[in-house]
């Protein structure tokens, strides 16, 4: 059976230690975590976590069952089971001197990035998109000009009117 990439959205109690329960489960049972993001929702008692993992169907079935078994997990959804949107945000600091200054600005425009910090020798660019788009932007830059890369990890939401809510 093939390893498939899955994006699992989890609503959980916004309690201290909730994140470590999820992280601990993955390390204890040998599951992969590609990325993991977490923040409170509009209801401050709930956190929303987006977890990207990969595994065979059997493993992913166990992952969702084991996550559901955690007492703090209220609800979860495997976004990859239906149409969905995924986004990642990157902050990237690049050297911007001489001719490269204009070139980088043009590239950022093409990728619909924003330059949000400017010095005489550097830019910080904010870029949002799928992981592929972000990879694409990084590859299009001259590797030597990259000073620092910060990626948020994937956030995801299902398309359509259905929502993951309590």
């Amino acid at each position, binding site marked *: 059976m093939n390893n498939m990439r899955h994006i699992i959205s989890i609503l959980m109690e916004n309690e201290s*230690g909730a994140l470590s329960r999820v992280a601990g489960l993955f390390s204890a049972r040998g599951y992969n975590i590609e990325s993991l993001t977490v923040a409170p929702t509009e209801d401050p008692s709930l956190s929303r976590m987006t977890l990207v993992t990969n595994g065979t169907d059997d493993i992913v079935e166990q992952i969702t069952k084991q996550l559901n078994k955690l007492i703090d997990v209220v609800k979860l959804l495997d976004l990859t089971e239906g149409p969905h949107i995924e986004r990642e945000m990157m902050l990237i600091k690049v050297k911007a001197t001489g001719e490269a200054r204009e070139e980088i600005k043009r590239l950022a425009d093409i990728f619909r990035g924003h330059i949000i910090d400017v010095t005489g020798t550097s830019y910080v660019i904010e870029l949002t998109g799928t992981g592929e788009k972000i990879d694409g932007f990084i590859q299009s830059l001259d590797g030597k000009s990259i000073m620092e890369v910060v990626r948020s990890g994937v956030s995801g939401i299902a398309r359509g009117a259905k929502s993951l809510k309590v």
Partner: protein
Amino acid sequence: MVLELTGAEILMSALKDEGVEYVFGYPGGAVLHIYDALYKQEDVKHILVRHEQGATHAADGYARSTGRPGVVLVTSGPGATNAVTGIATAYMDSIPMVIITGQVHTWAIGSDAFQEVDSVGITRPCVKHNFLVKDVKDLATTIKKAFYIATTGRPGPVVVDVPKDVTANKAEYAYPKKVALRSYKPVVEGHPGQIKKAVELILAAKRPMIYSGGGVILGEASKSLTEFVRLLGYPITQTLMGLGAYPATDKQSLGMLGMHGTYESNMAMHECDMLLAIGARFDDRVVGKAELFSPGSKKIHVDIDPSSISKSVRVDVPIVGSVGNVLDEMIKLIKAARKQPDKAALAAWWKQIDQWRAKDCLRYDHKSKLIKPQFVLEKLYQHTKGEAFVTSDVGQHQMWAAQFYKFDKPRRWINSGGLGTMGFGLPAAMGVQLAHPKSTVACVTGEASIMMCIQELSTCKQYGLPLKIINLNNRYMGMVRQWQEFFYKGRYSHSYMDALPDFVKLAESFGHVGMKIEKPGDVEPALKEALKLKDRLVFMDFITDQTENVYPMIQAGKGHHEMHLSPERELA
């Protein structure tokens, strides 16, 4: 003005309101306020153990033998870490327990304070859930939640970590009658469509097999299971954890299955065309090699925990629900069904099973001049009329006890199945004896296991617990030795128990009765004498045949049809 209580008083009141009879514990700095509150009340009785591992196993034995949650109270740091083995033991076997661990003051948490350890972090992978109570106002509700989580759904241990200042601070006390957690709603009723599908498969079977586990005992579904199995007339095998849920002496019972299960059970598992698993989890010691497991059967799995289903073996009809409810629904459908089991096919199947049975796979040498451990257990069974509570440690003696003591009732067989914790038997027996003061409680152990929690002999003296300790002393870690004999060409690396104590004197030094039994002819008189000593703990040191192995045996990674009987019999 409303009366305010300290956290320690709230804790004691909550335990009382929860109906807790015994707390097993050991005091220390972080729990001194709690012990002071304990001192000032009489409703909850405290049992002082000699090591925190003993406290958790004792509470565990209490829980397994009664169905009520076991309660533990230990201090921070080493108190909590010593309790971890017992917590993990309970977790693996889904035993309801609430463990209260002391913690350093909230303001000292994270400062590497004296006797500080991250108890919530350390216990996280081996609890059903755990809590750190940071505010005394949350204490009563948290205790309620802990009991609720521990005892519902698939049960398990819950740790409540309570910092010392929380036990000193004051709050109003009101113990909630109920708690509801939006994130925790165990499914109890099985899906009707799935149950219907399962019943169709069950009734259509020509070579049916029922395989039940500890979930039947945890779910108090022994009566339903017995009715169900008798209604169908099908064979049943039980896991190590499930023994007693269906009467072992009944003719439909094929005994235990798995690595050291009976020949008839394992062969029937392998050859059946319909396998119904009830409250069992397809553990690796049961399944062997998954690819070879029961290859020709349609599989139905009833379990309260969805994550148990299709974890190691894919099943055709999964049913999530409490086993009792699901069995009762199945009984109704079977009684109402037009189609009934195929009598001719079933008779042929039983004929086949009886042929397997005729191998008498548990037979052993009765003429030996040395004491055979199986003989001791057979006699223990006879002289206690099968009515004793039997705890065990881990190893050969555990398997022999499971094979030779025929449990007809649930909650009589108390052993560490999942984690396989040596040292479990003696403290677990203490909890059982406290819960059943008038019953015979036997601890079947070996000279290696018993040494792991031997200090609890002192607790037994303090509380007058008249346990009967059956020490099957072969001067080896028997199961390790057996594997070394089979798989390491007899290189007995560190499995010999050198420098053993004189167990008779050891027992006597703790104030108990000690006996040493060296000849087969002395086994029965000794047992009779020990069982007559109703108010004394008797430590019976049986010097047994060193070379005896547990048979039958399926090697790890082999199929059920590849069993070994004893060497002499395979040659014959």
